[in-house]
C-alpha cells in the first residue's frame, strides 16, 4: 500500500526538512502544505481500505481496518486545519517576540514529528511499537509545551513529562505481560505481539495474566487519555503551550491514547470472557466525568477551562466504550469525531481571543464579538456545540450514550446528567461574558484564521443533523469490530 508509505513518510521527512528551514518566513505555509499532503494520503488510504477491506502491510508490521482508518483520516484532517490556524497564530507570537527563530524551527519540526507519531500509533500492528509511538508523541510535544520558557510553562512541561512518563512505563509493563500471555499461548518470536495475531488467538490467552496486563495498560494509556485521577498534567500542558499544540493535544493525542486502550480492551474481552475490562473503563470514565465537571466552574484561564472540558468528554467516551455494544460503540466513535472537531475549533477561536486580549484570563477578555465577529461567534457556537446542545453532533452522540446508559446501567445516568448540567452552567456563563459585553480586546496584525473554525463547526452541525449513509455504515463496521 503506497498510500501508507506517503502517509507516514511525508510528516517524517517534513520534520527533518523543517528542522533546518523551519524559521523561514514561509515555514508556516510549508508546514500547512505538508499537513495537507498527509491529509490527501490519508484520504487515499481510506478510499482504498473501504474498497478492499482490512489489510496488513509490510510483513504485517502495519494493519489498517475500518476502525483505525477512520481515526487516521480524522487525525490527518485536524493536523491540516491546525497547521492552517497555526500560520497566522505563530506569526503573531513571533512578531510579539514571544518566540525566536530557533523556537519557530523547533515548533514546525516537532509539529510534523508529532503528526508522524500519531499516525504511526494508529497504523502499527505491533503493540510494542504502539507504545513506542505514544512515548514518542510525549517527547515530541514536551519541548513545545515549554516553548515560551515561562516558569509556568516549564512546570507544565515537567509535570507532563514525569506523569506521562511514569504512566506510560506502566503501559510498557502491561505490554510485557501481554507478550508473556501470547508467547505461552503458542505465539512465536516477534509475531506474538502483533495485534492481528493476538486477536486471532485471544481465546487461548491466560485470563489471569491478561487481566493484570489490562489493568496496567488502562492506567498507563489512561494517563494520556486524561482519565482521573491521573489527569493533572492535561490542564497545565494545554494552558501553557502554544494554542495549536493545545488543539492537537485535545483533538489528536487523547483520541489516539484512547484508541490504544480500546485495542487492548478487545483483546481483554476475548481472553477473559467477562465484562471486567468494560467495567473498569466505565468506572474510570464516570469518575473522570464527575470530577472534571466540578473543576470546570473554578477555572479562570480560558484554555484551562476547555482543557477540563476535554477531560470530561474523554471520560464520557471511555464510559461509552466501557458499556460496549453496537449503539454505545457507535456513539463513542461519533463522540470521538465531533469532540475532536469541536474542541480544536474552540481552541482556534480561544487562541485568537487570548492573543487579541493579550491574556488568557477569562475576566480580562470581554466583547469579542464587537471587535472580531468571526472569533466571537466561533467561540460561542463552538461552546454551544461542545456543551451538547442540539442540533450539533455532540448532542446526538451524548443522547445515544445516555439512552444506552439508561437502558443498561440506569444507576450511572444521574451522575452523567448532573455532570452535564454542572458543566453547562459553568462553561456557558464564562463564555457568554467573554463573547458579549464591553470590548476589552484589540485587533491583530495578522488576519485570524476563521476558516478552520467554521469548517469544523459546519461538519459537527452536519453530523448532528444527518450522518451520510456510507459514513454511518463505516461507523457501524468499526463499532462491530470493537465488540
Amino acid at each position: 500500500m503506497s498510500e501508507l508509505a506517503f502517509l507516514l513518510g511525508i510528516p517524517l521527512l517534513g520534520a527533518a526538512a523543517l528542522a533546518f528551514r523551519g524559521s523561514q518566513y514561509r515555514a508556516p505555509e510549508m508546514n500547512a502544505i505538508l499537513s495537507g499532503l498527509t491529509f490527501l494520503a490519508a484520504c487515499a488510504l481510506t478510499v482504498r481500505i473501504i474498497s478492499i477491506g482490512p489489510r496488513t502491510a509490510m510483513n504485517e508490521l502495519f494493519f489498517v481496518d475500518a476502525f483505525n482508518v477512520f481515526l487516521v483520516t480524522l487525525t490527518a484532517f485536524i493536523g491540516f486545519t491546525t497547521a492552517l490556524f497555526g500560520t497566522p497564530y505563530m506569526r503573531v507570537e513571533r512578531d510579539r517576540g514571544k518566540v525566536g527563530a530557533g523556537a519557530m524551527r523547533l515548533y514546525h519540526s516537532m509539529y510534523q514529528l508529532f503528526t508522524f507519531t500519531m499516525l504511526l500509533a494508529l497504523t502499527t500492528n505491533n503493540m510494542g511499537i504502539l507504545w513506542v509511538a505514544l512515548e514518542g508523541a510525549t517527547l515530541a510535544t514536551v519541548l513545545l509545551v515549554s516553548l515560551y520558557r515561562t516558569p509556568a510553562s516549564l512546570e507544565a512541561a515537567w509535570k507532563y513529562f514525569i506523569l506521562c512518563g511514569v504512566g506510560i512505563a506502566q503501559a510498557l509493563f502491561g505490554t510485557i505481560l501481554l507478550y508473556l500471555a501470547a508467547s505461552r499461548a503458542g505465539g512465536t518470536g516477534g509475531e506474538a505481539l502483533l495485534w492481528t495475531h493476538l486477536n486471532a488467538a485471544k481465546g487461548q490467552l491466560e485470563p489471569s495474566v491478561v487481566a493484570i496486563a489490562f489493568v496496567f495498560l488502562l492506567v498507563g494509556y489512561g494517563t494520556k487519555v486524561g482519565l482521573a485521577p491521573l489527569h493533572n498534567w492535561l490542564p497545565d500542558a494545554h494552558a501553557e503551550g502554544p494554542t495549536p499544540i493545545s488543539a492537537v493535544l485535545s483533538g489528536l493525542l487523547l483520541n489516539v491514547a484512547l484508541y490504544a486502550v480500546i485495542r487492548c480492551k478487545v483483546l481483554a474481552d476475548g481472553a477473559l470472557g467477562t465484562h471486567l475490562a468494560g467495567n473498569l473503563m466505565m468506572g474510570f470514565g464516570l469518575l473522570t466525568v464527575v470530577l472534571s465537571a466540578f473543576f470546570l466552574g473554578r477555572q479562570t484561564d480560558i484554555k484551562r477551562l476547555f482543557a477540563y472540558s476535554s477531560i470530561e468528554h474523554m471520560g464520557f467516551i471511555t464510559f461509552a466504550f466501557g458499556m460496549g455494544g453496537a449503539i454505545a460503540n457507535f456513539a463513542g466513535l461519533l463522540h470521538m469525531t465531533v469532540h475532536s472537531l469541536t474542541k480544536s475549533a474552540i481552541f482556534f477561536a480561544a487562541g485568537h481571543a487570548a492573543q487579541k486580549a493579550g491574556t488568557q484570563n477569562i475576566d480580562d477578555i470581554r466583547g469579542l464579538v464587537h471587535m472580531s465577529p468571526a472569533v466571537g461567534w466561533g467561540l460561542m457556537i463552538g461552546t454551544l456545540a461542545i456543551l451538547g446542545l442540539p442540533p450539533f453532533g455532540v448532542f446526538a452522540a451524548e443522547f445515544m450514550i445516555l439512552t444506552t446508559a439508561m437502558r443498561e446501567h440506569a444507576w450511572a445516568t444521574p451522575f452523567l446528567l448532573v455532570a452535564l448540567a454542572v458543566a453547562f452552567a459553568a462553561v456557558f456563563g464564562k463564555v457568554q461574558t467573554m463573547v458579549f459585553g464591553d470590548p476589552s480586546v484589540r485587533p491583530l496584525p495578522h488576519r485570524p484564521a476563521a476558516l478552520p473554525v467554521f469548517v469544523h463547526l459546519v461538519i459537527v452541525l452536519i453530523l448532528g443533523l444527518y450522518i451520510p449513509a456510507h459514513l454511518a455504515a463505516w461507523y457501524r463496521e468499526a463499532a462491530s469490530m470493537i465488540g
Partner: protein
Amino acid sequence: MIVTAQAINFIAALLLLVAFAMLSQRRIRALVNLFAVQGVLLTASTLLTASGTGQTHLYYSAALTLILKVFVLPLILHRLVRRLQLTGDVEMLINTATTMLVGIVLVIVAFNLALPISEFAGTITRGTLGIALACVLLAFLMMITRRKAVAQVIGFLSMENGLFFAATSITYGMPMVVELGIGLDVLVGTFVFGVFFFRIRETFDSLDIHHLERLRER
C-alpha cells in the same frame, strides 16, 4: 542450566542492592555511576540468559544495553552534570532511614505481585521477576523523594531498566523491533531532558523542583 540460573539470580540480587544504593545515594555523580553499574549488571544477566537458553536475539539486546546504558546515557548524564555544575548533595524530602524502610516494604509488595505471574511464565529466569518489579518500584520511590530534576530523570531511566529486566526474566526480552524502538525513545528522551534542564536553569537559576510547584487548582 542450573549454574546459569543461579548466576542470573545472583546478578538479580546485585541489581536489587544497586537499586537500594541509588535510593540512599545523595551525590548526583555517584548516582550516575550507579546507573552505569545497573547497565553492566543488566548486560551480564542478558548475556547469561542468551547463552543459557540459546535465544540469539538476546545477544543483540545485550549489545544494545551495553552501548546505551553503560556508555551513551551515563556519558550524556555526566556531561550534563558537568555543564550544569551540579555538585553537592541532593536534598531528600524524607530522611534516608525512612526511605529505606519504605523501600523494603515495596520489595515485599513486588514479590507478592510477581508470584502469580512468574508461576505462569516458563522461563528459567522467572524467579527474578520479583526483583525486577522491586527495581521499578524503588526507582519510582527515588523519583518521589528527590528534589533535584536530574535525580528524578535518573530514577526514570532506572525504572526503564527494571522494566527491561522484567521483560528478559519472563519472556526472554521483547521482540527486537520493539526493543530498538524503546532504546530510541530512551535516548531521545535523555536529550530532551538535557535541553529541558538548560531551560529550567535559565529560567529559575537552579534545578530544584520546588520552583515547579506553583501550578495548582485554586
